[in-house]
């Protein structure tokens, strides 16, 4: 894309390159070696460079059509806006991608060849410091590098750097390939300009500031410079280590590794430069590899890093516990194991590299739609952050008359499902409070507790059906929930959090409607999951409640008219029912035997109930009985109170109460 240039008034002497805006963008045919005057060695670049006009110029014109006009070094004349590159764009290919690759055909390279021919006197004109950097053997480079290791960029290296800089889209990883370069590779990039630009771009500011040496303490308004080249230039001046603006989004491990790799590269290339053109011995294995697979390394290390970078970025989240719950738990378990091992074992501690998913601070974005000055009205822009209403969707609720019975049933079921889901969310929150409690400050804790209590109340309301005003007349709502597999599991998980009365209420409701539940559960067989929480609840119940529980379970006393106790039969024929009955009986027995001064009234009730229950139990044929989950040990003593020895024996055999008979 060509920038629009306007012709500027006559240039000020020795000053600003305002003529960069001249329309000089003409693609000229390539004609012979272009750098013949300066660089006698022929490189691939020579074929590829667009031809420069032969006349000497005091203005720098960029002959290449596709290149951006060179930016001025002065902040007064603004440079054309840099297009921010979305993160999904791969890094721009350097002109010559790799030393190792054979260059099969010359690629058109748009390079500012002009850079290479400038050998101005130091401090002669007002030049950008970068130009000075690129000048080989400039006396400005006052660092004690030996001559052979002078930071002379070879053509290829320069081409890489400049070619990359060309399009104005610079990826941070580009600088990872900076080879042997002490200073900044970019021509005429002003740090102040950069500051306003894409945060993506790495600041080269650190580099050339070293050369000036003038300001000992860098002005705070300046861009922070990368610690990478800074550390490289340690002997020059200690640069304050500041945060690289572009890499803050990178994963900390990644950033560290990037630095390391940069260092490695620099060291490597420095040693390469020292040995001149011949690439040293460590390359031989490389060559071997290449011989075997000439297409290897089509994907550059830079590109691999880029993919890695994206993958790492995806791991960052504002709340890892929420986004990545399972991995966090797994990680914690591993650490606990490792810690335990460490304590016990005295072997060498295994250094296990684990992947950390870092927590990134949540940034508040306030989106303001773009506005232009002097325009009438606002733009209608619809984007992810600012969605526009496209369809006017109106919800019409259907009237009750139209619905068929089936639909009503389906809707009711759906409503129950929704209730279950809502209650589950509340439950998960409540379960999480312990963790939050540990993480929170002292002052916040009462508030957390209050929240938790409130949520538990809400859960109970959801469970038993709302309308806190009226009395809970029906178990209907609760039964609906219990008909669904997930609902039963939900109740099992909720029970530990409920208050004893509430839990007892749930237990009662279950017992009351047990045959119905059993019938519904025939396919799922999930009811036994309730046994454990029920048994926990039972431990806290007084005798009166237990008595009424037994009443509900066995449906005794029955009216005289009913011939058979269907309720009890159903209970006994089901695994869960029988197990629950045993549990309750066992608890009753416990209470009876332990508590000596129970109320007489309760005692009587209990005794009567037991008498009736045992009578029923005796009546039922053995084959009809289900196999319970567990048989409490004190049942024998329980029954022994109410029946004589003969009947006791019968009961024992029938219910397999005596161990070993089975």
């Amino acid at each position: 894309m060509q920038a629009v240039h306007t012709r500027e008034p006559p240039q000020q002497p020795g000053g600003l390159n305002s003529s960069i805006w001249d329309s000089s963008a003409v693609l000229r045919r390539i004609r012979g070696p272009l750098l013949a005057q300066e660089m006698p060695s022929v490189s691939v670049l020579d074929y590829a460079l667009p031809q420069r006009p032969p006349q000497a110029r005091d203005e720098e014109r960029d002959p290449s059509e596709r290149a951006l006009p060179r930016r001025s070094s002065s902040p007064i004349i603004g440079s054309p806006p840099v297009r921010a590159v979305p993160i999904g764009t791969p890094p721009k290919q350097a002109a010559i991608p790799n030393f190792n690759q054979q260059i099969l055909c010359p690629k058109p390279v748009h390079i500012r060849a002009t850079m290479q021919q400038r050998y101005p006197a130091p401090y002669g004109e007002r030049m950008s410091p970068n130009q000075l950097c690129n000048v080989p053997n400039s006396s400005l480079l006052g660092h004690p590098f030996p001559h052979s290791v002078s930071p002379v960029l070879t053509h290829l290296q320069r081409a890489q750097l400049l070619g990359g800089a060309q399009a104005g889209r610079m990826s941070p990883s580009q600088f990872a390939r900076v080879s042997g370069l002490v200073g900044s590779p970019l021509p005429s990039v002003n740090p102040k300009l950069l500051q306003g630009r894409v945060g993506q771009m790495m600041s080269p500011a650190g580099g050339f500031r070293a050369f000036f040496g003038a300001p000992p303490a860098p002005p705070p308004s300046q861009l922070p410079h990368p610690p990478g080249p800074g550390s490289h230039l340690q002997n020059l001046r200690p640069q304050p280590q500041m945060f690289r603006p572009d890499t803050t989004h990178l994963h900390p491990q990644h950033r560290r590794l990037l630095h390391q790799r940069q260092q490695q590269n620099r060291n490597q290339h420095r040693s390469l430069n020292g040995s001149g053109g011949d690439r040293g011995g460590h390359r031989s294995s490389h060559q071997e590899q290449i011989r075997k697979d000439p297409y290897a390394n089509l994907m550059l290390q830079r590109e691999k890093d880029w993919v890695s970078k994206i993958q790492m970025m995806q791991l960052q989240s504002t709340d890892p516990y929420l986004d990545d719950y399972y991995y966090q738990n797994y990680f914690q378990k591993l650490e606990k194991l490792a810690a335990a091992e460490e304590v016990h074992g005295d072997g060498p501690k295994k250094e296990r590299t684990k992947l950390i998913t870092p927590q990134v601070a949540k940034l508040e974005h306030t989106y303001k739609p773009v506005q232009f000055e002097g325009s009438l009205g606002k733009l209608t822009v619809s984007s992810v952050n600012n969605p526009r209403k496209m369809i006017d969707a109106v919800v019409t609720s259907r009237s009750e008359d139209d619905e068929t019975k089936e639909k009503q049933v389906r809707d009711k079921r759906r409503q129950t499902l929704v209730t279950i889901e809502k209650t589950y969310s509340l439950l998960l929150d409540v379960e999480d409070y312990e963790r939050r409690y540990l993480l929170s400050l002292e002052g916040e804790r009462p508030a957390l507790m209050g929240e938790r209590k409130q949520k538990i109340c809400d859960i109970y309301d959801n469970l038993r059906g709302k309308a806190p005003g009226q009395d809970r007349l029906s178990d209907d709502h609760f039964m609906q929930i219990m008909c669904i597999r997930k609902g039963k599991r939900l109740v099992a998980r909720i029970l530990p959090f409920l208050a004893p009365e509430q839990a007892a209420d749930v237990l009662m409701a279950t017992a009351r409607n047990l045959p119905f539940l059993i019938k519904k559960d025939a396919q799922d067989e999930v009811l036994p999951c309730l046994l454990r929480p029920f048994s926990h609840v039972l431990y806290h119940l007084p005798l009166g409640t237990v008595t009424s529980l037994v009443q509900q379970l066995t449906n005794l006393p029955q009216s005289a008219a009913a011939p058979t106790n269907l309720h009890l039969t159903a209970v006994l024929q089901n695994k869960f029912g029988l197990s629950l009955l045993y549990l309750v009986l066992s608890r009753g027995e416990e209470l009876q035997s332990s508590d000596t001064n129970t109320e007489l009234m309760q005692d009587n009730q209990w005794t009567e109930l037991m008498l009736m229950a045992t009578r029923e139990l005796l009546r039922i044929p053995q084959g009809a009985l289900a196999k319970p989950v567990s048989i409490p040990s004190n049942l024998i003593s329980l029954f022994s109170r109410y029946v004589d020895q003969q009947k006791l024996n019968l009961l024992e055999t029938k219910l397999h109460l005596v161990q070993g008979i089975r």
Partner: protein
Amino acid sequence: MNYMPGTASLIQDIDKKHLVLLRDGRTLIGYLRSIDQFANLVLHQTVERIHVGKKYGDIPRGIFVVRGENVVLLGEIDLEKESDTPLQQVSIEEILEEQRVKQQAKQESEKLKVQALKERGLSVPRADTLDEY
């Protein structure tokens, strides 16, 4: 340099020979040259391998660029063990013929099945018309 221990990343797999299974059932074997964040793959010297029974045939395809969403799975091929297979390689024409024959047989049996069900008054619902709930 392993950035991400404990995760799956294709970066280590580059320049190695892979077997890629696509969603449409094709099996491709080639050298993995390049990837991106969507697991789009560039396969080099790709060969499409058709398996019928104990026989297989290779069709050389050249360079493949596969869109990531179409990959079911991929795995590295151990070059030493590659030839250690009980399967027999045959020519392309032969394997294509075998494949055609197999397809035909399958269609025949499917037709018979549907016919038999229809006679009994049953019908196997097509997958796209199945109601979710």
